[in-house]
């Protein structure tokens, strides 16, 4: 087997396209999972059983079925019901939804870790419920969960190649396309492998910086 630098340079334009799609999926998927996860957590804390119960069932279901199955389902079944989205949108939604069922658990733990004295002080000062959440509890809870959320970002990054199965041309999709046309597998796969490591590493540096800022 020989390493072919020409294959690398021929692959690079496709690589950049793929990288852009991977980063888009990662960024939007993360944002969606952070937001939805928080929504699930707060809904699970409402006093109404008729809210908690369906949210609990749905999130349990999503967490315990494979992302791959969810991708296929959303991509091939939803259009039959008249709901059509682009492959990337579907992929972002699937990743965001799937990981929101994990981030909700992280948020819950973060909220429960806020000392009960903080709630009591808020009550003693007569702060409205909503303000207690937004000004006292959530800022403290979220600070605590940044490292755990960061780990899920890395996990999501490693799950983005699954989007290939619903025709999204992210990095692995581009590498596979290139390989099938040129019968050169080593170069494109190595390039995207290195790219995955670099993105993970940069993301972890970013997270550590964020943690340091929050913990002061």
């Amino acid at each position: 087997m020989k390493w072919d630098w020409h294959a690398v340079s021929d692959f690079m334009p496709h690589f950049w396209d793929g990288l852009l799609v991977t980063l888009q999926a990662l960024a939007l998927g993360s944002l969606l999972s952070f937001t939805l996860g928080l929504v699930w957590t707060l809904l699970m804390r409402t006093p109404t059983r008729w809210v908690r119960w369906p949210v609990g069932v749905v999130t349990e279901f999503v967490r315990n079925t494979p992302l791959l199955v969810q991708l296929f389902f959303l991509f091939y079944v939803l259009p039959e019901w008249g709901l059509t989205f682009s492959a990337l949108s579907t992929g972002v939604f699937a990743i965001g939804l799937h990981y929101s069922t994990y981030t909700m658990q992280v948020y819950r733990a973060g909220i429960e870790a806020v000392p009960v004295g903080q709630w009591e002080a808020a009550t003693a000062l007569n702060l409205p419920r909503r303000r207690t959440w937004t000004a006292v509890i959530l800022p403290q809870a979220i600070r605590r969960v940044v490292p755990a959320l960061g780990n899920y970002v890395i996990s999501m990054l490693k799950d983005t190649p699954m989007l290939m199965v619903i025709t999204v041309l992210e990095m692995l999709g581009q590498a596979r396309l290139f390989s099938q046309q040129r019968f050169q597998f080593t170069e494109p796969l190595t390039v995207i492998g290195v790219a995955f490591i670099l993105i993970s590493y940069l993301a972890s540096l970013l997270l550590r910086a964020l943690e340091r800022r929050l913990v002061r």
Partner: protein
Amino acid sequence: MSVETRTQPSATAAQPADLIRLERVTKRFGANTVLDQLDFAVQPGKHVTLIGPSGSGKTTILRLLMTLTKPDEGIITVDGEPLFPAPEKQVREVRKKIGMVFQHFNLFPNMSVLRNLTEAPVQVLGLSKDEAEERARELLELVGLTDKCGARPAQLSGGQQQRVAIARALAMRPRVLLLDEVTSALDPELVAGVLDLLRDIARSTDITMLCVTHEMGFARDISDQVLMFDGGRVIESGSPEKIFSDPEQDRTREFLGAVL
């Protein structure tokens, strides 16, 4: 420097109305009855100290008044208005009259000292940011921490944190200040500063104080009335001179002998 509190409208009456009333209040935690059919009243402006062995229900009274927990039976009124039983909206109104300082300070660690003091006046009393900050700065001067405006609570010593917590409670201009073992979590050398501040507030304002403490010297100094608790009931009450020098109950004598 003054900490304003509203004057009691009925102060002209011969017998001032009770500011706080508990009637036949019972509180149980599981099979354990912490307060047993308790009747208890505090007149406006009085400084009342609750003493007694741990688990005797002293702190529970403060927590009931702050609505941090609910009684199982009984009636609680503040300034003639029901606090329990009462609808949530009513509770919010009545609660404005009450402030509390906690054993573990419970400052908001994600906010500056100044913001700890302005948050509730802005959000609850509807003060403008400037008004609230002016009030906060006055109070920080009172507690001797003007230079700590921008600090985070974690950057302060325990004694400083507790002084901020006292200022935070006063910023709401409550009529009643509940003090729940406010020096118990402090290093011994920091206790005096906090107690001196509270003595000062007790002397210079007409705020009503309800105080749970193990600092008997402090209790003797500031109290108009001392209540001795045991087993969820008040077993003896009287002036500090009477309770500390010549208690009637053996149980009181025993308790004081153990803590003094």
